[in-house]
């Protein structure tokens, strides 16, 4: 590729239509930004695709589009989120993630400095996780037709032979585990939205969970279900699993790990932490007798220090998720009707 004479102005420059036009400007953006930061052997071959051999086992593939406002929030940004989110989706099949692809939709006028910050953060996240971005794509849309940047990542991985983790395998008697505190990501993002105007020290829990999953699967190959409670929070995830497995669930409020600041923010906004998003959490449904062993193992992992057994699976034709409240009563934990909005009443 011929080098342009002037390099990208990463301090003052902005995305313009030419960066998606297939010409020299686009080549320059790819070379000086994406190649520079994501650098790896497969990417260096500069093909429109990446070709590689895979180990024996079941292939697992997942894709996730990332739109988040604001793009930068305490504990992460859209870049790290787009890496962690897809790694986690692959890992929830019990798989070892191998490679990622990344597609960027950029809005005309988006500052190149912000884009560089995002790409750096993505590259850092992918390197730390050991899952390289091996192919990608960039498009530019006119000003006003995007929110700065959208990132779609796709991941593939391999699951060991015999692993049969699936959302329809929860059985009465199973234990429900979580690897740590609920609601950090959602509260961190909300606290950085200017119009909500509240301040906390809470950071997003955005993290890649594949090493934790690998340790769990090795110790307990018979894990029935794994899922990351992202949008809709723990409540949505448990309802999905209960519905797909045609079982009921009972969780204990007293055992749910929730930070005081998250509880405080939820009081203030009229939200329920059970419905607030997480980006570094997993729910595991495992045979009851394996629960304590797995819990000890999770707590020994840096991403599972605050792990807890939070409930159990029961028989229930209605597939209801119920909660024993810390106060001593019982209530349902239903699906949300729609996105949770701050309430005044």
């Amino acid at each position, binding site marked *: 590729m011929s080098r342009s004479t002037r390099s990208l102005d990463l301090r003052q420059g902005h995305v313009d239509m030419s960066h998606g036009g297939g010409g020299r400007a686009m080549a320059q953006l790819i070379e000086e930004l994406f190649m520079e930061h994501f650098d790896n052997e497969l990417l260096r071959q500069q093909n429109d695709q990446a070709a590689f051999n895979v180990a024996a086992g079941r292939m697992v593939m997942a894709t996730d589009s990332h739109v988040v406002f604001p793009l930068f929030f305490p504990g992460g940004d859209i870049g790290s989120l787009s890496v962690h989110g897809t790694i986690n989706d692959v890992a929830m099949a019990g798989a070892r993630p191998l490679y990622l692809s990344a597609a960027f939709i950029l809005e005309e006028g988006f500052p190149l400095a912000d884009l560089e910050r995002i790409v750096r953060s993505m590259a850092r996240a992918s390197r730390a996780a050991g899952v390289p971005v091996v192919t990608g794509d960039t498009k530019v849309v006119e000003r006003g037709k995007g929110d700065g940047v959208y990132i779609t990542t796709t991941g593939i991985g391999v699951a060991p032979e015999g692993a049969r983790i699936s959302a329809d395998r929860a059985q009465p008697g199973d234990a429900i585990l979580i690897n740590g505190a609920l609601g950090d990501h959602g509260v961190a993002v909300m606290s950085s939205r200017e119009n909500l105007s509240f301040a906390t020290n809470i950071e997003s829990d955005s993290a890649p969970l594949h090493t934790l999953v690998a340790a769990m699967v090795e110790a307990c190959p018979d894990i029935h279900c794994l899922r990351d409670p992202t949008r809709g929070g723990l409540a949505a995830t448990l309802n999905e699993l209960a519905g797909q497995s045609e079982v009921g669930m009972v969780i204990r409020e007293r055992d749910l790990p929730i930070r005081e600041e998250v509880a405080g923010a939820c009081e203030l906004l009229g939200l329920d932490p059970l419905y607030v998003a997480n980006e570094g959490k997993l729910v595991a449904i495992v045979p009851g007798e394996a629960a304590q062993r797995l819990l000890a193992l999770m707590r020994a992992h840096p991403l599972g220090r605050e792990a807890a057994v939070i409930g159990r699976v029961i028989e229930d034709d*209605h597939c*209801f998720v119920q909660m*024993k409240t810390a106060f*001593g*009563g019982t*209530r349902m934990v*239903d699906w949300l009707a729609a996105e949770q909005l701050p*309430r005044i009443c």
Partner: protein
Amino acid sequence: MKHVDEYRNGRLARAMARAIAAEARPGRVYRLMEFCGGHTHGIHRYGIPGLLPDNVRMIHGPGCPVCVLPMGRIDAAIELANRPEVILCTYADMLRVPGSRRTSLMQARALGADVRMLYSTLDALKIARENPGREVVFFAIGFETTTPPTAMAVKEAQRLGLGNFTVFCNHVLTPPAMRGILAQPGVMIDGFVGPGHVSAVIGRDAYEFAAREYAKPLVISGFEPLDLMHAIRLLIRQLNEGRAEVENEYARVVSDRGNPIALDLMDEVFEQRPSFEWRGLGMIPHSALRLRDEFAAFDAEQRFALAAGPVPDNKACECADILRGLKQPQDCKVFATACTPDNPLGACMVSSEGACAAWYTYGRHRKRRRA
């Protein structure tokens, strides 16, 4: 968190449940209405029905401003939002509530209307200052709690000489609505759990009529679960002793006379409407507020000619009987079938504080009880 955790103690809850069971006489049924939707929400969120004896029944009242707002007023708000010059500001609670054509402000926004979510009335003034070429309308809803902040915004707009700020006023009043319920034929309510935060504004004394004119005991309660159970216990005791008094369980927040600054401000800016429609209850005299003539310049109903008129509710809806204590949500034929929180047909399903929505969301696992 101080002033929160002390009132959510599970050990005390079990003791309180025993105390209530010891006090409730097996031979009679106690039908207690919590007027306030926040109480309804709390009762279900903490699973209180499961801690009460079978003969202590909670009847969920109309105290949710989102639920009781007639569909015609939502139609009017959507009509306002659809005017190209208007920025319509409101609390998030209102965004998803459907009007008569099954569209909501959220959907109007999706089609291009400029609808903004607010956390404080002062934000609406900021938007008005930043957009001098647009008309900023605050779609105001709520009881006596939310009204003083609206009054503050109107006064502040006047002080700043903001010509592009108006209020579409839907503020409603608690005591007249309670009267409205008590005056209905055949009500089956033995006593009231009185609202906590409304009472912080209007004061304990505002409820004397319930005890004096209708011989109903009323206990003002806080929103934490122990507060609620405590209030329930005090009501049972009054009923057992044949008393009908106003008691204040929430004295840490509620005084006898209320908040004088807030009351003066409300009185300065607003006056009573002769009558106002409550969804599920019909017309109730003197139950809502409008801006006084001195503040007519800030009244959206005067600035804009609104075409939307009243619309009747779905015929199958049993809200009127539910709110009188005669029926329970499960008695309604369309409960949890045609009528759900995603597609509410009646007032009681509109927000998570409505009687039907609270049952749907939190209580469907419980077996049905006879009213």
